C-alpha cells in the first residue's frame, strides 16, 4: 500500500553505534533549497569528522517527487538516501507515509536544541520524525515600489481599495507554487479575523470572499514568486506579496531594485516557516549514527549562524543566542546593506503562528485554485 514504508526495516536505536563502524558516504538530498543555508555547516563537519563521514554527495530535487523516490527505495529494501533536507511539505508528506526515522528515539544523543520559542513550535510539526534546522517568520508582507505607491495600504481594506484603484498592479503568485503566495494566504485569516485560521475549509469565509474581491483587480497569478519580483522590477506590477527572505535576497541578487519598500498590514500575525533534516527509514545503522552527529553539529549556535546567509531565509537560525555578528563576513555585509532594521522590531512585535499542517495547506491550495484562481470560469 502506498502509505506504508514498504519493505523498509528500521534499525532500532540500540543497534545504532555512537560512531559508524566505517566512515560513511552520505547522500544528502535537498528539496527545499536548504543547502544554500546549510552546506557550509555540513562541509565543515565532514572536514572535521572524516572518521564519521568520508564523503557527502548532494542531490537537489523538488519536494513533491521525493516521497515517491524514497518509497521506491524502501519497498526495494535499498535505501540510498542518507539524509533529507526539506520544508514542511516534504516533512509532513513523509510523516503521513511513515517514511522517516523517529528522531525522538535519539533525542538523548542529539540533546535538546535550544530552539527559539516560535521555532520550537515549528519543531512540533515534525512529530518527532525530524529536526528543525532553520526557521523564518516569513510573512505576510507587502512589497511595493515607493515611486508608484507613495502611500502604501496599512489594512486589508486599504489594500483592496488600492488594488481597485490600480487594477492589475497588485500581484501575488499562485499559493501552491509560491512561498509569499501561501504565506499571504495563510496570514489573511488572522488579518481578517476569520473564525478558525487553522481550518481553511470551514473557518476562512472572510478570507475567501476577500480574495475573490481582490481577484477582480488582479490581472493574473504568476506561477513563480520570482515572476512577481520581475514584474515589480520592470513596472508591470507595483505591489506584491512577499516575505522576509524574498525581500532581502532578491535585492541582494539584483533581481529587484534596492529602493523598493516593505510594509505590513494591521493585525499582522507572522506565519512562520522552517526547514528540517529527516532520515529516511531503511538506512543502515552507520548512516543513522552519522546523521545524528551531523544534525547535532548543525544545531550548535556557531553553525546556526551560517543560516543568516544572504537573507535568503531571514533570519534563519532556529536556536537562541545566534546573532548576525556570529555569521560569516559576507552574510553580515549583505544583511547590513539589504536587511531592514524594522524586521527585528516587527518580529518581536507581532504574534507568531505556525504555518498550516500540510494537509490543510493542500486543502487551502485546492480551494484557492477552485474559487480564486479558477473562480472566474465558474462565475
Amino acid at each position, binding site marked *: 500500500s502506498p502509505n506504508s514504508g514498504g519493505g523498509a526495516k528500521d534499525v532500532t536505536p540500540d543497534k545504532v553505534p555512537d560512531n559508524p563502524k566505517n566512515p560513511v558516504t552520505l547522500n544528502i538530498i535537498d528539496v527545499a533549497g536548504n543547502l544554500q543555508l546549510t552546506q557550509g555547516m555540513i562541509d565543515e563537519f565532514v572536514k572535521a569528522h572524516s572518521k564519521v563521514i568520508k564523503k557527502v*554527495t548532494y542531490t537537489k530535487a523538488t*519536494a513533491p517527487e521525493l516521497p515517491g523516490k524514497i518509497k521506491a527505495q524502501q519497498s*526495494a529494501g535499498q535505501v540510498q538516501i542518507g539524509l533529507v533536507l526539506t520544508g514542511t*511539505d516534504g516533512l509532513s508528506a513523509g510523516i503521513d507515509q511513515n517514511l522517516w526515522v523517529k528522531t525522538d528515539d535519539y533525542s538523548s544523543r542529539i540533546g535538546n536544541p535550544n530552539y527559539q520559542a516560535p521555532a520550537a513550535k515549528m519543531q512540533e510539526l515534525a512529530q518527532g520524525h525530524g529536526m528543525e534546522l532553520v526557521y523564518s517568520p516569513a510573512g505576510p508582507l507587502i512589497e511595493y515600489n515607493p515611486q508608484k505607491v507613495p502611500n502604501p495600504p496599512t489594512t486589508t481594506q486599504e489594500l483592496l481599495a488600492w488594488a481597485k484603484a490600480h487594477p492589475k498592479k497588485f500581484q501575488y503568485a499562485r499559493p501552491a507554487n509560491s*512561498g509569499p503566495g501561501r504565506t499571504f494566504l495563510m496570514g489573511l485569516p488572522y488579518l481578517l479575523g476569520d473564525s478558525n485560521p487553522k481550518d481553511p475549509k470551514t473557518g476562512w469565509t472572510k478570507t475567501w470572499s476577500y480574495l475573490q474581491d481582490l481577484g477582480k483587480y488582479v490581472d493574473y497569478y504568476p506561477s513563480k514568486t520570482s515572476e512577481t519580483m520581475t514584474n515589480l522590477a*520592470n*513596472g508591470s506590477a507595483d505591489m506584491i506579496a512577499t516575505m522576509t527572505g524574498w525581500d532581502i535576497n532578491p535585492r541582494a541578487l539584483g533581481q529587484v531594485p534596492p529602493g523598493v519598500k516593505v510594509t505590513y498590514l494591521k493585525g499582522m500575525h507572522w506565519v512562520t516557516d522552517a526547514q528540517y533534516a529527516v532520515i529516511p527509514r531503511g538506512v543502515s545503522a552507520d548512516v543513522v549514527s552519522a546523521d545524528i552527529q551531523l544534525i547535532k553539529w548543525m544545531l550548535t549556535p556557531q553553525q546556526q549562524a551560517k543560516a543568516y546567509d544572504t537573507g535568503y531565509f531571514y533570519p534563519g537560525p532556529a536556536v537562541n543566542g545566534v546573532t548576525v555578528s556570529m555569521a560569516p563576513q559576507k552574510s553580515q555585509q549583505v544583511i547590513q546593506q539589504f536587511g531592514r532594521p524594522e524586521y527585528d522590531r516587527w518580529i518581536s512585535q507581532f504574534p507568531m503562528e505556525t504555518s498550516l499542517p500540510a494537509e490543510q495547506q493542500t486543502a487551502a491550495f485546492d480551494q484557492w485554485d477552485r474559487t480564486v484562481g479558477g473562480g472566474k470560469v465558474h462565475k
Partner: protein
Amino acid sequence: MTTLTEARPPVTEEKAPRRVALRPGAWVVWGAVVFFLLILVGIVGAVVVNSFGKKWFGGWLPKGWTTHWYGATWKEFDLGSVLTVTLEVAIAVVVVSVIVGVPAAYALARRNFPGKRVLMVAFLLPILIPPITYGVPLATVLYKFHLAGKLSGVILANLVPAVPFVILVMTPFIEQIDPKIEAAARMCGAKTWVIFTRILGPLLIPGMLAAAILVLVRTVGMFELTFLTAGADSQTLVVALYYSVSAAGIRAQQEIDAMAVIYTLSMLVLLVVALRFVNPTQLVTQIKERD
C-alpha cells in the same frame, strides 16, 4: 549522312523562361517560416540576454553584462559531471531503443498477425500513461534488482517510453520501403541481421535519425523517471534544471536562464552533431532528385 540533320533556322540563344517566380503559396509558407524564426529568435534571445545580464528591470537590454550566473550554476550543480551523465544516459537510451525498437517496428510493419492490435496497444501505453502511475513501482523493481540509483537504472527507466516511441515512429518508415529490396538482399545470402545493418539501416537512416533525435530530446527532458531512479552521481541535467525552476527558495532568474541555456546548448550540440552525420532527407530520394 543527309538524314542526320534537317534544315532548320539557327537555334536562338535566348534562355527558356524558367519557373523562377514563387507562387503565392510559396510566399505564404516562407513567410510563415520567417515569422516563426523571428519569434524563435526573440524567445531564445530574451533568455540568452537575460542569462548574461547583471540587472534587467525592464527596458530593451539589461544594465551591465556578466558571466557570473553561468559560473554560479555550474558550481552549484557540478554541471560538468551532470552533463557527462546526461550525455551517457542520452546516448545509451538512444542506441538501445533504436536497436530494440527498429526490429520490432519492422515486424509490425511487415506482418499482419493475430494479436497485433493488442500488441500495438501494449506498445502505445508507455507513451500514453503518465509516469506518475508507473514510475514508483518501476523504480521499486529497479531498486530491487540493484539497477537503480546508478546509471543503469536511469537508462532502463528511460527506455520504457523510448522503445515504444521508436517503434511507433519507425513503423511507417519501414512500410515505405519496397520489400523486394529485402528479398533481393536475401537472395544474395544476407541474413536478417545483415538486412538490418546493410540494407534497411541505410535506407532508414532519416527515420532513425528522426526517431533518435526525438528520443534524445524526450530522454534529456524526462524528469520523473530519471529522478525516481537516479542516484547521487547519476543525475541528469533536467533534474537540476527542474530543481532550479520549481524548488522552493529563491534563486536569481538569470541563473535559471543560464541553466536553461546550458541545457539547450548541450542538446543543440548533440543535434548538430547528429545532423552533420546524416541529413534528414532520404538518401534514395536525394539521388533520384539529382536528375
